[in-house]
């Protein structure tokens, strides 16, 4: 159960859109509507049962100002209610909703993230999250930034290119059993190692797909969680930490922010059965797993992780939803979810979820 002083809050429902390379027909509202319908109908509630709404998205993907406001049309916010937004992955919207639920005056919140990566050139959009004075004007694309990080890992002797391929092979194979996966295959490591470099030392298999998608979670507190879900996924620890903007000023082969967040969330206060890690590039999974202190017996990314589908602004929230689903379906008792934001694992969120 939650740590002393925290109001118990649980994930009680999770839904995600189909993850596709390019959603040409539907706009964001039309993509979100069926996701909300599913996340509510899963537990037999309506929009009127949640007292707070928080979303994660970015206008840089939508190409228009205040796109999160028009996305509210997909919920129907009448009568008016409290709503908030973070220009971050929906995982951070979930954090805000968790904090909001601690106040005790409302019992449930809707959290969601959405984004259509296909409408813009993601390699340019993501360059704009870098330092605006000395880095962004150079337009470093995200694959090149990830390659710098992967090269650091190799040069430090912390990993090999074969390790990267093993992450990709395992993730894509796991993705075969995920109906929402965009990229799934059963290919051996030797075959993957034969691929050409996209940006050395990254081969095609180490890269995430480009994905249009959306996801939503309902959080419920106290008795309300048991009322709505047979087996709520209680958030027994959650924390997030950020590191410096400057890529040159931090150790890219480690993730101090993940380690700190994991300590505060209490990751290693008990046995971890399953971990859903938000590592868009295969080498990053090695860094995050080490930073969390996960043992070899932990089942990592049974969903395939962000290598199976990487909808910007909801891929982190989906990790929480997938981890919570392992609790809700009874297949695990204690799981860890991780989300990342910013270039090269700059900011990290860690949550521990447990059944009772």
């Amino acid at each position, binding site marked *: 159960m939650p740590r002393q002083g925290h109001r118990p809050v649980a994930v009680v429902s999770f839904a995600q859109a189909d993850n596709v390379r390019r959603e040409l027909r*539907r706009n964001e509202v039309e993509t979100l509507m069926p996701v909300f319908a599913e996340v509510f109908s899963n537990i037999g509630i309506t929009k009127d049962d949640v007292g707070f709404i928080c979303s994660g998205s970015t206008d840089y993907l939508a190409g228009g100002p205040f796109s999160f406001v028009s996305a509210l049309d997909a919920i*129907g916010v*009448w009568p008016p209610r409290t709503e908030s937004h973070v220009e971050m992955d929906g995982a951070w919207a979930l954090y805000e909703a968790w904090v909001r639920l601690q106040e005790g005056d409302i019992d449930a919140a809707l959290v969601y993230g959405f984004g259509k990566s296909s409408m813009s050139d993601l390699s340019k959009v993501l360059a704009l999250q870098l330092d605006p004075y000395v880095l962004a004007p150079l337009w470093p694309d995200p694959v090149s930034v990830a390659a710098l990080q992967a090269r650091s890992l190799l040069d430090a002797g912390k990993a090999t290119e074969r390790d990267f391929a093993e992450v990709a092979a395992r993730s894509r194979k796991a993705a075969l059993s995920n109906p929402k996966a965009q990229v799934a295959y059963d290919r051996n490591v030797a075959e993957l190692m034969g691929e050409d470099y996209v940006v050395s030392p990254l081969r095609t298999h180490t890269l995430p797909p480009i994905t249009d998608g959306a996801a939503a979670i309902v959080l419920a507190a106290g008795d309300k969680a048991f009322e709505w879900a047979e087996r709520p996924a209680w958030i027994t620890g959650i924390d997030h930490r950020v590191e410096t903007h400057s890529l040159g000023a931090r150790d890219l082969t480690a993730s101090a922010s993940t380690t700190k967040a994991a300590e505060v969330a209490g990751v290693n206060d008990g046995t971890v059965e399953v971990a859903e890690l938000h590592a868009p590039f295969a080498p990053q999974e090695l860094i995050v797993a080490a930073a969390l202190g996960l043992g070899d017996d932990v089942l990592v990314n049974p969903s395939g992780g962000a290598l199976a589908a990487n909808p910007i602004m909801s891929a982190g929230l989906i990790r929480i939803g997938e981890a919570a689903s392992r609790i809700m379906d009874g297949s695990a008792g204690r799981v860890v979810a991780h989300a990342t934001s910013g270039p090269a694992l700059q900011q990290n969120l860690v949550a521990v979820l447990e059944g009772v």
Partner: protein
Amino acid sequence: MTSGDQRGPSDERGPVTTLATPIRLDYVFSAGIAQSRNLRGLAEGKFVGQRCGVCHKVYVPSRGSCPVDGVATDDVVELANTGTVTTYCVVNVPFAGQSIEIPYICAMVLLDGADISFMGLIQEIPTDEVRMGLRVEAVWVDPEDLGPTMASVKYFRPTGDPDADYETYKDYT
């Protein structure tokens, strides 16, 4: 600071105060299913909206969802070419990129049968005679110039009918 230090106030050139970093992003916009219906209607010289099955309000253009009930507005409705001015302003200030001679009227028009107003120009009437409740009709561009854009509507002009009763549009002002 020592004389060799190039930082801050000791540098006789003063601080760097401006940095130009040009940014350009291109987008391939998806209008969506509902708004595409509206845009195709404009290309045919007609207003196409969508009705909510719960509250029965008609939105034009629709984003695909009723913002009150959060359900899909799947019922497609073709609307009249006539409507009512619910509010307006007289533009007297020139600005960069202005394409119409000032003064001109910018108004919110509630199409007959619609439950949401949208912005349009009012012409063929002296600016000091425009009023709330004025009955107007859309004037479209020539058929060969019609396209999937609001620019297909040149402007609205008075129909000459008596003004609408305030009660008929008070919920939309």
